[in-house]
């Protein structure tokens, strides 16, 4: 057993054994396998204490064991893993104590903990909103009057109070992804558990929605003294809401500290590939600090960077203006109605230019994905004209051949992998386009090389990691040689390294002259990579312009549920007092301006 360097020292705000909301001691876990060779340990000697009423963050790269740890806290592991008494010690060691009570097979499902998971679809267990909200309380035998009151309150808390009328008739398919995620959170808020575990609960929400939901949970925590364990990749949320943060890497807890000390551990965070706040990254690169540590809030950032910025302002190079090129997509008056009568687009006019990287933004259900699917020929516009590379998409034949010109990468790679070998997967689209075998082989080899998957050519895609599957999905579309590539939420639920990897691939493609359209809620991505942004609101275009222009317009940001990244927000704030300073949107720009 490997000892924990950090946990052997007293924890900040340490609690005694009896009063801890959650106490984990020497927890080891490995998943059962069907072969004789045992799996590697997923959790390794985890030792943690969470104080009652504390908001405890857990972060770390993908595959670190974060979700497994949550499942262990809920007792799913090991008590629902169907292990015999003989098998149990081979897979599970250690002890978990919840509110002073040792977790056993009998106490594992004691209803004191709730867990909201990442994918809202898999948590929507009933066929109406009303029953979904009431399910947990129904199981607990709570009277119907109280269920109604609590369900109503919970729905209000997550900003969906308007759905209460008709909740009985509201089918899961009537709700957008973001709404489902809020409902999943509301279903647990209605339960009012003493300990609430949130496993990346806001990954599908727009930036403002994300903030609103977490603020609600923080308020409930204060009001009801609820203990919250927040598993997140988003460093801004962790820094703003958590009392302490734990770094989980390769199944080990490598660091537990309050946010200010946590984000001061540069080497540890960088080596593990953990996502870090923009302000901390600026501080690391430039050496400017707030009270000898990286700033985490806007006020701290202002205090740390304003004076150096005033000294270095002359060194800042102006951001180059983008140059317009040939239009590749021209949409005029585009309307789209779904079969259930919902009008998703209400007259969209938009032109895309060759070689640009453009972000489609907007709140959940605003019509951005529908518009992108029309450009890709997956949907046909109900009204209006769409011309892609000069071809009118009203013609069925044009839409059928469109994948050779416009590639669409779906959010979940598992939806788009059809073959049992990586090589066949890339070849699938090429076969459909009727490309001859020798040429296909050449394209497959070069594409595998480009995305760094050559050594996995004969592997089954289902056994690749999520990041690799995402790259394969991009590669499979890329192999068809499209001039325009549409990527839906490429960074959702991904760690820093995966995000950097996928975005550098997209940048390479852009440099080759391809037009990239990114549907995203990630404002850091927008600021760092996109030359132009288009924001949707209720099926209409609410804004078209550069990221700089967007982040300067508070009214547009509010209307479209967007929120600038910390670096851009800090720049806006400092410029209010010093208008002569340049607008800085990214860590790169800040670093250049301060160096």
């Amino acid at each position, binding site marked *: 057993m490997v000892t924990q360097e950090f946990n052997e020292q007293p924890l900040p705000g340490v609690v005694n054994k009896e009063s801890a909301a959650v106490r984990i001691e020497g927890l080891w876990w490995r998943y059962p396998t069907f072969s004789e060779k045992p799996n590697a340990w997923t959790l390794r000697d985890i030792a943690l204490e969470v104080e009652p009423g504390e908001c405890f963050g857990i972060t770390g790269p993908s595959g670190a064991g974060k979700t497994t740890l949550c499942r262990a806290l*809920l007792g*799913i592991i090991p008590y*629902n893993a169907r292990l015999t008494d003989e098998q149990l010690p081979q897979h599970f060691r250690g002890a978990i104590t919840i509110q002073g009570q040792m977790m056993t097979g009998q106490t594992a*499902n004691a*209803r004191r903990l*709730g867990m*909201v*998971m990442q*994918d809202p*679809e*898999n*948590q*929507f267990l*009933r*066929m109406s909103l*009303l*029953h979904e909200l*009431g*399910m947990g309380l129904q*199981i607990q*035998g709570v009277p*119907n*009057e109280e269920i*109604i*009151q609590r369900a109503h309150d919970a729905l209000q808390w997550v900003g969906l*109070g308007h*759905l*209460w*009328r*008709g909740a*009985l*008739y*509201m*089918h*899961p398919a*009537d709700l957008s992804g973001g709404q489902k995620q809020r409902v999943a959170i509301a*279903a647990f808020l209605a*339960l009012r558990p003493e300990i609430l575990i949130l496993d990346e609960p806001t990954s599908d929400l727009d930036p403002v929605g994300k903030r609103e939901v977490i603020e609600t949970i923080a308020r409930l925590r204060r009001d009801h003294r609820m203990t919250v364990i927040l598993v997140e990749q988003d460093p801004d949320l962790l820094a703003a809401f958590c009392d302490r943060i734990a770094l989980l890497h390769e199944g080990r807890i490598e660091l537990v500290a309050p946010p200010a000390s946590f984000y001061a551990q540069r080497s540890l965070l960088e080596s593990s590939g953990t996502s870090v706040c923009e302000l901390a990254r600026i501080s690391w690169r430039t050496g400017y600090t707030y009270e000898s540590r990286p700033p985490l809030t806007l006020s701290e950032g202002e205090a740390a960077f304003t004076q150096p910025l005033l000294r270095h302002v002359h060194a800042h190079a102006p951001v180059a203006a983008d140059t317009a090129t040939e239009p590749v997509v021209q949409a005029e008056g585009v309307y789209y109605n779904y079969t*259930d*009568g919902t009008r998703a687009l209400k007259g969209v006019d938009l032109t895309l230019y060759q070689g640009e990287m453009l972000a489609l933004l907007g709140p959940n259900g605003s019509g951005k994905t529908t518009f992108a699917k029309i450009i890709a020929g*997956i949907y046909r516009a109900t009204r209006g004209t769409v011309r892609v590379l000069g071809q009118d998409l009203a013609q069925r034949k044009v*839409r*059928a*051949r469109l994948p*050779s010109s416009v*590639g*669409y990468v*779906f959010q*979940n790679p*598992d*939806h*788009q992998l*059809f073959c*049992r070998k990586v090589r066949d997967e890339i070849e*699938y*689209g090429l076969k459909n386009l009727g490309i001859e075998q020798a040429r296909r082989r050449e394209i497959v080899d070069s594409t595998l090389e480009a995305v760094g998957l050559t050594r996995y050519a004969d592997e089954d895609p*289902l056994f690749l990691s999520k990041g690799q599957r995402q790259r394969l999905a991009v590669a*499979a*579309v890329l192999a*068809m040689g499209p001039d325009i590539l549409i990527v839906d939420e490429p960074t959702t639920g991904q760690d820093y390294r995966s995000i950097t990897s996928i975005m550098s691939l997209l940048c390479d493609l852009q440099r080759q002259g391809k037009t990239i359209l990114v549907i995203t809620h990630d404002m850091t991505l927008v600021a760092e990579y996109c030359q132009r942004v288009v924001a949707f609101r209720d099926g209409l275009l609410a804004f078209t312009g550069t990221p700089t222009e967007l982040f300067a317009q508070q009214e547009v940001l509010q209307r479209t549920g967007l929120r600038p990244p910390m670096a851009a927000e800090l720049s806006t704030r400092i410029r209010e007092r010093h208008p002569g300073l340049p607008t800085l949107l990214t860590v790169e720009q800040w670093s250049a301006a301060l160096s």
Partner: protein
Amino acid sequence: MSRQNILTTGAADAPFLQPPPGKRFVRSFLFSRRIDAPLAQVHLLARIVLVFSLSAALLRAINTDHPDLLGAIVLWFPGILLFACSGIRPRVARIYVLLTIPTLFSLFFTWAVFNPVPGTVLLRQPVYGGTLHIGVALWEIIWLALVVAYFLWRRGLLVGILLASLVTFVLTRFVALPAWTFAQVAFFHPLTVLITDQGALLSLIKMIGYSSMILCTVALVMTSSDIELIGLLRQLRTPQPVVFFLSTVFRALNLAFTDYETIYQAQIARAINARPRSLVRRLRDLGSIAVPMVAMMIRRSSEIGDAFLARGYSLRNKSADFYETSPLRSIDWIMFGISLCLLYFAFGPHPTLTILLQRGI
């Protein structure tokens, strides 16, 4: 929204039990129905009993031994009425009617041809003389050449066969094409299509009866939702694990359908429609959907299990009713009364309506 308003849990006018504002249609087992569809106001149990009773009465009317034309016509109207009251979307209704018509015609001809009934002969058409001719005809060579040529050109088989059949049929009507017979072998016995007036009448009665049964069954499925079915099972005191299992199956099917839509869209994005596809190719593409579907289902099933456990669910739990069941109202008892009449019509010791009419005349 006032607190008083939220807590009117027993009242039917509680906001959460009202139709959502601006929404005219709600989802059901298949597609969707109007929120205010008259048939949907009837309790699911009463609807099921009514549809089954009507079907039983129709089965008696279309009985082969004692066909009852008048009975079938009279019972056709309630079936149509149920369909009309189901609140089905006009577009979906048109599709169902369009699909039903060829099915019924096919039923009519199949029954008339393969179930000979004594009576006045309306049609006598020999179709096979009892001898197999072994040889080759020019039209066969033309047909084969057309099919092969079409396949090489468009990689399609079904359309090629249809086109070749049409061309050779038209050709043989206008030109006498040569045929070469090498041998003749006696096989089976001569076959003749024979349709009598009684056979045609029976087929017509069957067609009327089945059309009514199809439409009232569609009406039942269209107006029912999974929540209603779960409520009914609770009211019928079905064991909790069965109710839980069915409830999970409905949700899983809904998820599978959503996944299927996305996966199919992903296939479109990978150019499956770029070229005309043969039937084999279409089947292979359909089969390739299975890979992501199974992967998604495995991943989802694990998370759904976790989600149930996270809500504190176990099969030992006995959860109370929460707006799932609904009490039987006057309209439901009226429907049960009508069902009883229909059941008497189906199984009661009475002559058929047609006989009663003939006696009256």
